[in-house]
């Protein structure tokens, strides 16, 4: 399977006045196939949003990013490569991503106009898209404030679809919505991916939703991708201690009264990441060499990859021990 979107060794620095540059993403790799949903998870500040913005070209980045075989160039003053129209983004806040003073139909139709469609035709197609995302037929002649948060996010998705994308990067698309709206917007995204054979990068801090909808999951920690794999396997047998910690911190609504497991310590300051493996100060399984050696992301068997010395390249995932063994 050839990759639709492929990012290799992506790094993003934020330059700050009077402080050293902050490396928000540090050599991250991602790949996405057509018809695939990739969940990108991690704690706040791990660089998942920055990586998402970098792969669509909204954020200048070092490293190589290719979409459909062509390099993704950061958005600048010049006209964007028309080949990049198929690469689109959905943002977290549908209150900020829509223009409050323009008709919804006009905003959705923009994508078609830019693609060279005539205005009446663009408006007609915009109406179709609005119905496709589950909005009433008269939505086109209304303003964004007339809709609820969930409906606005549907409008933002329709607006993205007007560019006839083959790949969408959605940054926390359901986090700002109410519980019942979250489920319906997530379902919409899944349906669209299956129906239009698109690729979707679903960035979220909500692991349980990612578990439900993503085919593969990538886990980020402090600017790095530390584990990637098929969602089901990654959940049932995490290869990285951090992945396991994230999963066991999710409370379940099963009424059993089980307290989620705490991961001690805070995420370190990304401007001063710890040496060696970045997770070692919080890792329950850290070995002496972990404070020295920085493990690269290596492929294991079964389509899984991990950046941890506890796993052997090319081998199946070794189950993680509950606790560190005494001085081995």
């Amino acid at each position, binding site marked *: 399977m050839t990759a639709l979107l492929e990012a290799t060794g992506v790094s993003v620095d934020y330059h700050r006045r009077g402080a050293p540059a902050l490396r928000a993403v540090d050599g991250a790799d991602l790949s996405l196939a057509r018809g695939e949903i990739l969940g990108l998870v991690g704690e706040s500040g791990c660089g998942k949003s920055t990586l998402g913005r970098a792969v669509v070209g909204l954020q200048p980045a070092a490293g190589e990013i290719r979409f459909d075989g062509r390099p993704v160039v950061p958005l600048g003053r010049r006209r964007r490569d028309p080949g990049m129209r198929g690469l689109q983004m959905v943002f977290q806040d549908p209150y900020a991503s829509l223009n409050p003073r323009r008709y919804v139909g006009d905003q959705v139709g923009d994508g078609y106009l830019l693609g060279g469609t005539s205005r009446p035709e663009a408006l007609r197609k915009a109406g179709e898209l609005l119905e496709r995302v589950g909005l009433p037929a008269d939505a086109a002649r209304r303003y964004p404030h007339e809709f609820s948060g969930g409906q606005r996010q549907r409008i933002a998705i329709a607006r993205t679809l007007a560019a006839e994308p083959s790949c969408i990067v959605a940054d926390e698309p359901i986090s700002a919505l109410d519980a019942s709206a979250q489920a319906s917007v997530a379902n919409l995204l899944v349906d669209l991916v299956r129906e239009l054979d698109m690729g979707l990068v679903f960035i979220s801090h909500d692991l349980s939703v990612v578990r439900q909808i993503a085919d593969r999951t990538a886990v980020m920690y402090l600017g790095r991708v530390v584990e990637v794999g098929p969602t089901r396997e990654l959940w049932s047998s995490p290869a990285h201690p951090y992945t396991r910690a*994230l999963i066991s911190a999710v409370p379940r*609504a099963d009424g059993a009264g089980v307290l989620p497991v705490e991961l001690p310590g805070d995420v370190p300051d990304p401007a001063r990441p710890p040496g060696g493996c970045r997770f070692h100060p919080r890792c329950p399984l850290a070995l002496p060499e972990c404070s020295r050696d920085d493990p690269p992301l290596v492929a294991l068997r079964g389509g899984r990859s991990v950046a941890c010395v506890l796993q052997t390249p090319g081998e199946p995932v070794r189950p993680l021990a509950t606790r560190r063994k005494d001085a081995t």
Partner: protein
Amino acid sequence: MGALLEVEDLTVWLATRRGPRMAVDGLSFQVDSGEIFGIAGESGSGKTMTAMALLGLLPHAARTSGRAMFEGRDLLAMRPRQLRDVRGRRIAMVSQDPSTSLHPMLSIETQLTEHMRHHLGLSRSAARGRAVELLDTVRIPDPERALGAHPAQFSGGMRQRIAIAVALACEPRLLLADEPTTALDVTVQAGILRLLHRLRAERDLAVVVITHDLGVMSAVADRICVMYGGRTAEVGPRERVLTRPRHPYTRGLLDALPHPEGGAATLRPIPGSPPSLGEVPAGCPFHPRCGYAVPDCRTGRPAPVLVGPGHAAACPPDPLEGDA
């Protein structure tokens, strides 16, 4: 011994441009010492206004009726001065966003000791000593140094721990925690939930946790009240409400959650959206979205009826019987 907090028929009207609107409609519940009581619901269900009413912190021109008996006194009938002695001392609050509940320009020491000195009359050095103990209780590393620091120097999780320390300073009997972990990552949330759980055991503290997250409820609450449209939809022991829900709304909330075992099944949202303030439908407030609604639901006002030990649901037809 009676309950620590006994709320009876609490009703809250908020002033809007179009006149008063009911935000909480005849809510009753009780909380015992050492109990964690959860109030769940979507935005606009009235859960935050319930907490604000108990603390006398409702917006200007809001009105209340009903009773809220706390340690033998009615919180709703207290004068502002009397309430000031209760608030912060006997009842404390932790809010959702620790970056707004802590003052950005004041040191942690000032924020932790000000109300101890006011309420308990402690000297500066005694208050400081207690502050160090409190920071240690909520597991802030190096408490001595933390006292001199400002909120911006801590992460979100640490700030929420500090906010909890501030709330605990005067040894309250009741802690109201409004979405205490919503702004935090799951890893940090786990730590805060464990902290709340430990505090109630160590201090016999009663905690009211308000959250929309049923996973959080399942982790810490002993009993859960599910609110909808300002009313109780269902109330009962945690295990019963989450595994044998008797109200279609509770069932809908649980079904909308991702399945714990993952898999390909799609999420099942509740159709429609919750009513906004002043637009709560007549009859059962949930009936327009309810898959089990019968004509009676549009007119009658179902009161919670007992459906099991300590378990009540405001849904008389018992539609979920048999398919649990």
